[in-house]
């Protein structure tokens, strides 16, 4: 279960274990800390055309079994990524897949166009869960917009195109089928769930503004498994499973369910070596699915 996997358009990962966007920066922290070994892929922080400062703090809040974040896509912009970061990825064993975000289809096209000639970038992952798209609809919740975005990106890049789906929709398989038809090589699922934490001390939400933010971590695993199971049943292209994975056993659940690969997110924060150790554990063998027989 731990060996090489093909996630589309010639993109082969040495291990099905990757790390999720926004939970691993651009990989340099893990490089310094010695935590890159054995990973199949690093999905970078969401990258936009221009640099973004991100949202005002506080940006994160913990809830039982998970965390809420509203980071606001803080990133240095695609130019810095292409010229300063990419050369530092040269020679890395894990593939680097740049997570791409934007407000319009044109934003996605421009970022992917800029990355297309960069040899160190193995693929792009389109994070189509961003608000403020044309017609006031989120890209990721409208099958037509999602397909159109995928198609437009498909035309400007020869790299593998993975589309990352939001779970905050009535039917995730409808969006999945749309981006499959739009030419996606694979989908990844899920992004965070809309959540809120209330502060009784302050009488307001803990996070600023409306307080709405993205829930991630072990608490979402049953939800993510359901979304991935439905996508696996509905799609022909590979599905990369994400959501609450914090151990090799969690990873195996997604893989047994039919996911081609997986990404570890929030767990990287509290167990910085977890992705590398999961990759190693999966490489070693199938582990023990068995409990002691009852009685």
């Amino acid at each position, binding site marked *: 279960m731990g060996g090489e996997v093909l996630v589309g358009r010639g993109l082969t990962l040495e291990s099905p274990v990757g790390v999720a966007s926004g939970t691993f920066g651009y990989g340099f922290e893990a490089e310094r800390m*010695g935590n890159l070994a054995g990973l199949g892929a690093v999905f970078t922080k969401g990258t936009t055309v221009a640099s973004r400062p991100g949202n005002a703090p506080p940006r994160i809040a913990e809830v039982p079994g998970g965390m809420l974040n509203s980071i606001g896509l803080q990133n240095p912009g695609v130019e810095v990524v292409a010229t300063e970061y990419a050369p530092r990825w040269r020679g890395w064993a894990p593939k680097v897949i740049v997570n791409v975000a934007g407000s319009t289809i044109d934003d996605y096209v421009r970022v992917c166009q800029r990355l297309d000639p960069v040899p160190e970038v193995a693929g792009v992952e389109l994070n189509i869960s961003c608000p403020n798209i044309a017609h006031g609809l989120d890209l990721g919740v409208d099958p037509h917009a999602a397909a159109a975005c995928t198609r437009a990106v498909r035309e400007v890049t020869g790299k593998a195109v993975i589309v990352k789906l939001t779970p905050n929709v009535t039917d995730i398989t409808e969006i999945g089928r749309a981006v499959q038809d739009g030419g996606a090589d694979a989908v990844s699922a899920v992004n965070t769930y809309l959540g809120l934490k209330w*502060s009784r001390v302050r009488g307001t939400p803990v996070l600023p503004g409306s307080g709405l933010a993205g829930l991630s971590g072990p608490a979402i695993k049953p939800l993510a498994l359901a979304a991935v199971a439905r996508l696996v049943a509905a799609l022909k292209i590979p599905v990369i499973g994400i959501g609450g994975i914090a151990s090799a056993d969690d990873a195996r659940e997604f893989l047994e369910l039919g996911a081609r690969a997986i990404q570890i997110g929030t767990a990287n*924060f509290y167990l*910085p070596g977890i992705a590398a150790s999961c990759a190693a554990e999966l490489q070693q063998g199938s582990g023990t699915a068995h409990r002691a027989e009852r009685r």
Partner: protein
Amino acid sequence: MSATLLPESDLSRARDEVATCIRADGLGPGLHLLTLEAPEAAREALPGEFAQLQVVPGPLLRRPFSFSGVDPGRGTVSFYLRVYGEGTRRLAQLSPGSPVRLLGPLGRGFSLPQVKGSSLLVAGGVGAAPFPHLAGQLLARGERVRWLNGAASADQLFPLGLLPAGLAGSLQVTDDGSSGRQGLLTDALAELLDGVDRVYACGPNPMLQAVAEMASRLRPEALVEVSLEAPMGCGFGTCLGCSIPLLSQGTAVPGLCCRQGPVLAADQVDWEGLRRQPSHLE
């Protein structure tokens, strides 16, 4: 990752080790001194650096704490902590023998002087945490070190006896006058700034801002460093949760408390930005 040009912590020194609690002392209401056997951290941790601690069962994310005491010889480190929510409650309940995951050292600590001089350590409440270690290092370098500690009441002052011997002076201030002088820490500060080369401060943000303003007014030539706090998801620069408003060449930039901080020169902090920002305390 960050847009600032400020220096960042050296992550290659951080280790994730399973430490063992060897002592847990109550030092006041909700105040605890936790001593852990953690040989790797004890070898590396510099004053003002912090560790991310995790107890199982306990909250999902680790919690950041400044190294308070560090004994490389014994292979132990200590943390001075105040019970706030679930994470600190679990830590306070540890008993000798219990395991604690410790990731560290993380962050940038206090700058240690190249030439001898006079340092003033200013601690508000549990902000005393990093100073035993800092005081020890300063004294070892021949520095003249004075201590100013403010708290709500006597039982919340850091025990003087737990500071290294050799301080050139100390002043304690309590809101209610139950020990030392009555009043605010900043009221006492003015008279201690005279002749000081370095001011190191740790405590709540309004106190830090007041210290920074007073020091820059009364003792502009002194180096002023403050240790800031922010909610931390990781402690090593990947979650971007610990954003704090910094100044880089005079313009406001978002910095990361865990990598450019927690210790910053007072003039690197965008104090107005910090003041406007809603509290991260829940």
